[in-house]
């Protein structure tokens, strides 16, 4: 109960700070954020978009980890964790893609550009979608768990490939490679703090939701077991 309350307050503060702290050319006061020319107020999206992208990646890694464990030990709990994490992952992925395309619109004028970052998040979305499409078309719990774990591993390996291969493939126009560097340099301590707090907050949110989902699934499982 206490944890929920703290998490709620934490994220509320982050959101309020991110949206309301004033942006000025030369931040002096503790609550002022630096102005990035060309972005101004729209830069606020970094407090939300980046953590979402981070969480969806984390969710994928957790899902992959439990998939591998399931294949090794055939413990049903691992399958529960794997699919619960994937469920959260797809949600955060959709949010990250949407916020990301808004960012793209602000910066470069169009919602979608097929540069490496955008393509990667899109591929992750496709992988999540495929994972659930597979799960919903297999009967039998054990088979479903095994097949989706296998696919998760294949997808994980592919995603790894993608990350290393991408720079070569597409001449990106995600100039926030430069901006992020510039951004970090020009992120003053206030901005950095809010950013990191947001990162921590959303990660905590994910972990809390994951625990809930796993708990619910485990209870369902036990109920059905008792029923037989």
């Amino acid at each position, binding site marked *: 109960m206490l944890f929920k309350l703290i998490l709620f307050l934490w994220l509320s503060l982050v959101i309020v700070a991110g949206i309301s702290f004033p942006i000025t050319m030369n931040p002096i006061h503790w609550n002022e954020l630096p102005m990035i020319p060309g972005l101004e107020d729209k830069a606020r999206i970094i407090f939300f978009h980046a953590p979402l992208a981070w969480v969806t990646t984390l969710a994928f890694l957790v899902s992959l980890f439990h998939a591998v464990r399931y294949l090794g030990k055939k413990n049903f709990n691992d399958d529960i964790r794997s699919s619960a994490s994937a469920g959260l992952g797809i949600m955060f992925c959709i949010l990250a893609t949407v916020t990301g395309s808004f960012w793209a619109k602000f910066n470069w004028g169009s919602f979608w550009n097929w540069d490496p970052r955008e393509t990667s998040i899109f591929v992750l979305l496709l992988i999540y979608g495929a994972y659930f499409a597979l799960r919903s078309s297999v009967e*039998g*719990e054990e088979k479903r768990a095994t097949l989706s774990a296998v696919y998760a591993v294949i997808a994980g390996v592919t995603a790894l490939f993608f990350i290393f291969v991408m720079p070569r493939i597409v001449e990106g126009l995600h100039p926030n490679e430069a901006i992020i560097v510039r951004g970090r340099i020009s992120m003053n301590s206030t901005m950095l703090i809010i950013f990191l707090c947001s990162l921590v907050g959303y990660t905590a949110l994910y972990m809390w939701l994951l625990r809930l989902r796993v708990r619910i699934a485990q209870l369902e499982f036990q109920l*059905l*077991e008792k029923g*037989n």
Partner: protein
Amino acid sequence: MNKNIQFEVNDISKTFNRRKIFSDISFSLKQKESLVITGNNGSGKSTLLKICAGVLTPTKGKTIFFIDGKPLDNSYSFRFIGFVAPYLQLYDEFTGWENLQLACKLHEINDSRQAITPLLHRLRLWERRNDVYKTYSSGMKQRLKYAFALVHEPPVLFLDEPASNLDQQGSETICEIMKEQKQEGILIVATNDEHDIGVCDRVINLNVQRSISGVP
């Protein structure tokens, strides 16, 4: 079949979608011993048979084959077993001969002609050996399945409903085959047929006990 063979089953359980079919089944068979698995329809006879043959994974427990006293790596167990069942399907688009030849090549039998010919004659399929499996009657299909199971002279034979689809003559041939198998190796049968039950020396009845060990 010149190797000494033993077959052991330890604490086998199988659960399908939360339904427990059977649990803690253990037994062991030596050469020249035979076992019949009986029970009502749906009691898990075929499931247990498939697990013993290594084509289905148990939820718990394991099966081991011992060749000359040494345990066999289960991925090779298919070389030492023959399996016949109504739900076994051979290749429709291949002829009887081609189906058997496939088995010979994969079992590394050098002279396939020598292995296949006597079997086809014995099972009265010689005339139809060059017709595709699709054109066989159900009785012929069953007999070809026996040829398929026996072509590599397996020390252990698994039969699910041995006499299904067979006429009088076919049943008699099968009876002989079962007797020969009992004399040379191990025979495990899953059936409800009274006559076939009588052939084997030991019984597992899945109606009576869902949990069995040390079969008398």
